[in-house]
């Protein structure tokens, strides 16, 4: 049979093995071979500290008493892990970016690095977790007692207490040795994590082994076991929906808010991607842990004598079946569950207590000159070691006072609900920028107070802390304040009653106070950085103003060395100096550098303390509302500059298009010019050739006088043609140079048109001109000679180009109006191709290069120049069935007392 001594020896051997594992892992990590220590598998296994002795032993007891209700304790965390993408990923990312050291640090950091909130969260965690540690100590002693009972030895009660005592001492020793070795949260606890990963494997193996033995060894296979489950006396599935949902919620909430879970999940996380593995592997782990709970419970109820403690079935069933080896394995599994939980919980709590309570108090108590000399690094480590010892001492004290009773057994869920009070403030902080420190603090205090009043204090039993008459009649006879019937709601399950009131009012107060209060600048900064952690890249730089430049970098180095240690601090400063392009160890003290340094310190002492220290060192150069507004202004300015840039780009695009058009036009003009040059050479050459040849003929002797006169006439006509061409060129150049003097006169438009028709010799040609005499009676004040020149040109063009059997020209005079007066010259010729329409008014442009009687191509250019001088315009009017030109006279040509 197993004796007490064998049990102690095995336990000690197992503990020595764990020390070895932790030691080896630390050695490996120091040697830089930490890759395999930080695999997703180890991460998942380390999460299994969720499964404590309470779940290892207690789940079976719970199943024996309440059926399937124990499943909720596993379903809640499974849901959280399945949804890792939404919540845990954000928590881990924030934890890394902001160097979060604990759940209290997370909440305090989010709410403007508030020291008060850090303290409140720490106290809530302490109140919830201390009894939980006591529960683990109790489970260790109970498991010893089971063996003692079967061994038939009457171990005195003092021995059991001694077991608890020495367990606490041993755990404190282990935790201090491996848990408070280093300070920076980035140098994680490799030894501890490895040890709890090994323990995770041990407890999983133990429970599965007992389960397999029960189902196939005792129960006669799967079918028989299922039949036994159905035949069980207790109704296993008789759930009230509220309790099922409520417990699932509480377990899920506790899973993310328990300090030890936060420690392994966020602080010890090496790589965000490990969550992807843990997202399915952890639910698989807890499913395995719960797979055989019901069979063990049902078998235990069948086999064990009535009155046997169902909490210990995992141990007593193998012992009753005379399988001491299996029982030993189960014992080690329970031992592992208890110890791993205690170790991590005390590390997490010690971090919180030292960072949020002891260090700030110490710094506040010291005079400034003293704090500058003291070695804070050693101080923080020692305070943390002291905290570990304190937490375990508290746990042991709690066990000694309340141990053994049913009070402790119910402690698991009570502790869960206690830490769940952190959830509203935390979730609100992660997803709602409007959450304020005042709201979070009010919600936390409200929730914690209601939890303590309705659940925690009554759990010690009637009369233990709350007098029985208060339980029945309420304090001071106020019935509506009765702890288990707040506001007169009776008949509710106490846990559900506390859950609804504490979480409900906690959330309500948190939201309402957040809505009506205004956050401090730092709070708003942190809120934005937390809520938008995936979008914002470098937080912290904005938390300090340019006033930091007054601070000496050397002072900061002294401070940093005292917390980070000389080597790491100098490395940080050197890297920052190099990033600024400076040599040496002292960078310029910019807000960005102060923010970075604060983050480094926060990894060691927590955000609130680090911020307080930096604020002291920089003499209060912290952020103000004005700074926040300036950030917003900068953003607005950037947006404005972007808008202006966009407008400029658009304008450039338009200019480029205009330039392109101009270029195309120029290219076409150059071609036209070349054509014109050859044309004008030809034009000049033709009359010159006739003049030369006829003047040669004139020189020949014996020419009869009739021919002499004819030849001289030809020479004169050709000379006239040359003169006309040169006149036109000259005219154009005069017009273009603006040397023309206008001789204005007032006369009817008809007179000018008549002159033009006469001068262009239209009457002698085939062209028929349609006019409307009434419209033409309008008086105009202009230079009639120049205007007539334009009309002549247009009519001549029509004579030239309006071919066909019946060439027709319509002259349409528009109605005089504020836009002036228009005259349209529309012929029935072939018109001008669209491609040439914008070129016809250019010099040297010719309407039809292959035309029979082509002019020099100056006519329309002259027309345009004349119209410019007259203040009007001439344009081509497309879509009129032939060539159509519109002459626009400006409004000032119309005399005020005109006939119309």
């Amino acid at each position, binding site marked *: 049979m197993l004796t007490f001594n064998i049990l102690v020896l095995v336990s000690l051997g197992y503990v020595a093995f764990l020390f070895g594992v932790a030691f080896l892992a630390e050695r490996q990590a120091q040697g830089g071979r930490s*890759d395999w220590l*930080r*695999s*997703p*598998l180890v991460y998942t296994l380390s999460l299994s500290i969720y499964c404590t002795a309470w779940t290892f032993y207690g789940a079976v007891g719970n199943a024996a008493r309440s*059926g*399937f209700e124990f*499943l909720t304790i596993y*379903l809640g965390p*499974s*849901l*959280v*892990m*399945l*949804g*890792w*993408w*939404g919540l845990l990923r954000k928590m881990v*990312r924030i934890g*890394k970016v902001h160097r979060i050291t604990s759940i209290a640090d997370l909440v305090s950091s989010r709410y403007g690095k508030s020291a008060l909130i850090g303290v409140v969260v720490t106290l809530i965690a302490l109140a919830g977790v201390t009894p939980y540690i006591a529960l683990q100590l109790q489970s260790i002693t109970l498991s010893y007692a089971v063996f003692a009972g079967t061994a038939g030895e009457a171990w005195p009660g003092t021995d059991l207490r001694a077991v608890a005592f020495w367990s606490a001492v041993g755990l404190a020793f282990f935790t201090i040795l491996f848990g408070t070795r280093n300070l920076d949260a980035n140098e994680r606890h490799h030894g501890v994590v490895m040890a709890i990963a090994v323990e995770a494997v041990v407890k999983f193996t133990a429970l599965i082994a007992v389960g397999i033995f029960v189902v196939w060894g005792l129960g006669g296979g799967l079918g028989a076991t*299922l*039949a036994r*489950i*159905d035949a*069980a006396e207790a*109704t*296993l*599935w*008789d*759930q009230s*929906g509220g309790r*099922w*949902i409520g417990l*699932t919620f509480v377990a899920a909430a506790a899973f993310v808010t328990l300090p030890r879970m936060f420690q392994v999940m966020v602080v010890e996380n*090496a*790589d*965000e*991607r*490990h969550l*992807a*593995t843990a*997202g*399915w592997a952890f*639910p*698989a782990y807890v*499913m395995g842990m719960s*797979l055989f709970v*019901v069979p063990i419970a049902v078998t235990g109820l069948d086999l064990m004598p009535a009155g046997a403690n169902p909490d210990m079935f995992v141990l007593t069933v193998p012992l009753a079946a005379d399988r001491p080896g299996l029982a030993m394995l189960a014992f080690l599994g329970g031992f592992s569950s208890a110890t791993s939980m205690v170790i991590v919980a005390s590390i997490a709590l010690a971090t919180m207590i030292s960072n949020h309570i002891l260090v700030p108090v110490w710094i506040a108590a010291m005079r400034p000159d003293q704090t500058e000399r003291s070695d804070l690094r050693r101080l923080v480590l020692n305070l943390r070691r002291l905290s570990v010892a304190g937490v375990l001492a508290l746990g042991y004290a709690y066990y000694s006072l309340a141990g053994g009773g049913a009070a402790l057994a119910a402690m698991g869920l009570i502790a869960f609900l206690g830490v769940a009070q952190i959830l509203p403030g935390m979730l609100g902080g992660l997803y709602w920028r409007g959450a304020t420190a005042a709201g979070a603090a009010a919600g936390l205090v409200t929730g914690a107070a209601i939890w303590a009043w309705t659940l925690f204090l009554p759990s010690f039993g009637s009369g233990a802390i709350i007098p029985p008459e208060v339980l029945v009649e309420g304090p001071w006879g106020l019935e509506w304040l009765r702890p288990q019937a707040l506001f007169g709601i009776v008949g509710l399950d106490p846990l559900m009653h506390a859950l609804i009131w504490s979480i409900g009012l906690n959330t309500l107060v948190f939201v309402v106070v957040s809505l009506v209060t205004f956050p401090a600048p730092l709070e708003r900064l942190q809120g934005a950085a937390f809520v938008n952690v995936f*979008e914002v890249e470098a937080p912290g730089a904005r938390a300090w103003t340019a006033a930091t430049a007054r601070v000496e970098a050397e002072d900061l180095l002294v401070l940093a060395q005292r917390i980070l240690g000389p080597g790491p601090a100098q490395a940080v400063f050197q890297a920052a100096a190099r990033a600024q392009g400076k040599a040496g160890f002292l960078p310029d003290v910019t807000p*960005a550098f102060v923010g970075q340094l604060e983050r480094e310190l926060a990894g060691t002492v927590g955000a609130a303390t680090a911020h307080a220290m930096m604020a002291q060192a920089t003499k209060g150069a912290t952020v103000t509302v004005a700074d926040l507004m300036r950030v917003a202004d*900068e*953003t607005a300015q*950037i*947006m404005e500059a*972007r808008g202006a840039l966009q407008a400029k780009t658009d304008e450039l695009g338009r200019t480029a298009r205009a330039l392109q058009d101009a270029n195309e036009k120029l290219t076409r003009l150059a071609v036209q010019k070349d054509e014109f040059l050859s044309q004008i050479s030809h034009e000049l050459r033709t009359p010159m050739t006739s003049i030369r040849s006829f003047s040669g003929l004139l020189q020949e002797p014996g020419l009869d006088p009739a021919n002499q006169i004819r030849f001289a006439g030809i020479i004169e006509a050709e000379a006239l043609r040359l003169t006309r061409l040169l006149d036109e060129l000259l005219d154009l150049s005069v017009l273009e140079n603006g040397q023309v003097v206008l001789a204005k006169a007032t006369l009817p438009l008809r007179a000018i048109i008549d002159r033009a028709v006469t001068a262009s010799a239209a009457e002698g040609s085939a062209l028929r001109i349609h006019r409307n005499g009434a419209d033409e009676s309008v008086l105009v004040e202009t230079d009639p000679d120049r205007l007539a020149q334009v009309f002549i040109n247009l009519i001549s063009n029509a004579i030239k180009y309006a071919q066909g059997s019946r060439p027709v020209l319509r002259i349409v005079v528009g109605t005089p109006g504020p836009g002036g007066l228009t005259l349209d010259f529309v012929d029935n010729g072939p018109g001008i191709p669209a491609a040439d329409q914008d070129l016809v008014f250019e010099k040297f442009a010719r309407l039809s290069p292959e035309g029979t009687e082509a002019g020099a191509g100056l006519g329309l250019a002259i027309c345009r120049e004349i119209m410019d001088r007259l203040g009007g315009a001439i344009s081509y009017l497309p879509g009129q069935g032939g060539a159509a030109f519109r002459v626009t006279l400006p409004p000032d040509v119309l005399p005020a007392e005109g006939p119309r």
Partner: protein
Amino acid sequence: MARPPRRAPPVFLERASYRARRRADAAAILPVIAGALWMMPLLWRPSTDGGLRSSTVLIVIFGIWILAILAALLLGRRLARDTDSSGGPGEDPGQGPG
């Protein structure tokens, strides 16, 4: 210290990014679905004539568990790959999901 303006996230995505977004959606909705399914047995009342057996409830709950784990396994692998390719966190490169 003017920062370059943060570009507004694009409204429409190419196929690969679109699928990655939908996988993230699926990951977010997975616990909701699993939670709802686990509430389902609450609607079953133990009937007096022994119609509903405890073992059935147990098998259903564990069945949902296994399905949820498989779904998370498939989704998690793809999501980890998505974050890798988009130059995700990667403080410690090295270990893939294993």
